[in-house]
């Protein structure tokens, strides 16, 4: 794989403000960031510092006012709304704090949505959805409606939905904030597993997790801290992972600006196919 292919996210001078005049909020005030594929990157920082805005720009659901936002070589700023929609469908998977499952749809139907949206025939989409549910341990709840599932189960369904299309970028905004510690851990395990997954062509995936939850920091390959619309030059904290993932990433330690290209970790118990 070439170096360019490893380059998952590239931000240059990204600015975003909301409102005008007195009510103007400068949510992003010049963000530069390079992320490599094959990593789980955590984005931390105080409430209102712009984390959600940043991942919205990265995932192509929000336009930056200024700057360049590129994901796997796709520059969102150069695309029309329809083109962006199409690229989002193939590139990005989402996991949200409040799950955002479609209430009237069954678990498998929810999981099948990203495929259906892309035009996959329903029988094939169903097959893939059921398989994705199996991987998150919910094979037996495929027919359940979201309201019949616990919060943790719903978030697992959401993860299955985010991954069923095998996106190259997985964006999670506070995925554990509405969950208790134990369920949060299960969910983070699944997200961590996803970080070593690959897309259909075997290319590595990049996972971005926005979080407040310091109990999850040890899952990170790299932590970026935000403050007041910018990334801190040097990450204030760097939490070491458990022994199995202890090998330090040189680029992460270098902070924002460098490409964090860690070596691919051995698969081990992780299912690299997801």
């Amino acid at each position, binding site marked *: 794989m070439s170096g360019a292919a490893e380059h998952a996210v590239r931000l240059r001078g990204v600015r975003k403000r909301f409102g005008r005049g007195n009510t103007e909020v400068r949510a992003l005030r010049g963000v530069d960031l390079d992320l490599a594929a094959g990593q789980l990157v955590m984005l931390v920082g105080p409430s209102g510092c712009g984390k*959600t805005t940043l*991942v*919205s720009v990265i*995932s192509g*659901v*929000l336009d930056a006012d200024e700057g360049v936002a590129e994901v796997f070589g796709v520059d969102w700023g150069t695309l029309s*709304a*329809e083109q962006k*929609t*199409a690229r*989002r*469908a*193939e590139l990005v998977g*989402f996991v*949200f*704090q409040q799950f*955002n499952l*479609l*209430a*009237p*749809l069954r678990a498998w*139907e929810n999981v099948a*949505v*990203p495929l*259906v*949206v*892309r035009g996959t025939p*329903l029988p094939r989409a169903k097959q893939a959805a059921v398989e994705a549910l199996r991987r998150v341990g919910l094979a037996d709840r495929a027919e359940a409606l979201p309201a019949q599932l616990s919060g943790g189960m719903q978030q697992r369904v959401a993860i299955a939905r985010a991954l069923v299309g095998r996106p190259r970028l997985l964006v999670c*905004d506070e995925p554990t904030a509405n969950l208790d510690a134990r369920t949060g851990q299960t969910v983070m395990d699944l997200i961590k597993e996803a970080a070593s997954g690959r897309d259909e062509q075997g290319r590595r995936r990049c996972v971005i997790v926005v979080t407040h939850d310091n109990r999850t920091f040890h899952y990170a390959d790299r932590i970026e801290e935000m403050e007041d619309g910018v990334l801190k030059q040097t990450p204030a904290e760097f939490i070491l992972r458990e022994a199995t993932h202890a090998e330090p990433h040189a680029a992460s330690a270098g902070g924002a600006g460098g490409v964090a290209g860690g070596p691919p970790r051995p698969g081990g118990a992780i299912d690299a196919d997801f």
Partner: protein
Amino acid sequence: MWRIALRMLLGDRPKYLALVCGLGFAVLLISQQAAIFMGLLIRATGPLQNVAQPDLWVANKFVRYVSETRALSDEDLSRVRSTPGVLWAEPFFSSRVQCDLPSGNSRYIQLVGIDRTTMVGQPPVVTEGRLEDLRIEGAVLVEESARSKLENVRIGDTLKLNDRRAIVVGYCRAKPGFDSPAVVYTTYANCLRFVPLGRNAMTYVLVKVRPGADVRRVQEEIGRLPDVAAFTHAEMTDRTVRFILIETGIGINFGITVLLGLIVGLAVSGAIFYQFTMENSRNYAVLKAMGARRGALIGMVLLQAVWVGLIGYGVGVGCTALFTLQSRQPGMELAAYFPWQLLVGSLVGMILCISVGSLLSLRRVLRLEPAVVFK
């Protein structure tokens, strides 16, 4: 995507029902009122429909509708008879007359008089008794729907028309007029006995044009005679309908009701549908974020609109159809007529109703920022 759209719709049971009911009610209001209106118009032309033979109806030239009584004289009759191109011309009488029942009670009836020899203008169906018996002096046939109005008089019973004795010899079926009076048939000769108008008692002269003669020409010829004018069946129908529409104010009244139905339909279904979309805007945003294309979203909204629209239409039109069937039962005073044009008309009304809601919704959905999914 279709499946998702329908699941969204059917998943929200209360709103779904409210939408279907709102639309159904609007369609019901529109189609039912229009049906009654058309029923009344058709009923108003009833006396015309009863008489099929003549080509021309000769009347006082100021006559406004078929049931209006403006007398013609015997001279008028003979002048029409001697107009070139006329095969035959027979008197036809129709007037409001007071009728005393055997019980001593009295009411007004519509007395129809036809020529004694030719029986031109006879009732379409004789249900009991014989038409020929009308030739008996003072004989009358009572129209079926008038039976109850005349306290179920029987054959052989005596009525008093303007204090002169009349004897019931049978029953017939004919279409009543606009104000659905009790219709009683007799001969023109008898009419002259019952109604003391001297010899100026004719309402119409019914004219058959000689085979090969041009109806238009004959019509023009008769039009040159003093005081009278000749109308074809279609022209008379037209006059009657226009009279009911404009001069009775019925047209305006029904028009307003139909319009109200449309407005209620537009407002209620538009508002509910829009609110339904608003409540689903997060779902739409999620779909957008996951790559649902514009066209797919438009399709979803339209499918939902068409779905509730068609079901609401079915409910409304179904109710109107039931109502129309009910009004056909004998003895019902309700007039309703439900031709296919009305089905199309209410369909257009329904489409108007749902298009407001779906256009608003589409605007909402298409402008939706997918970034709200993170909120």
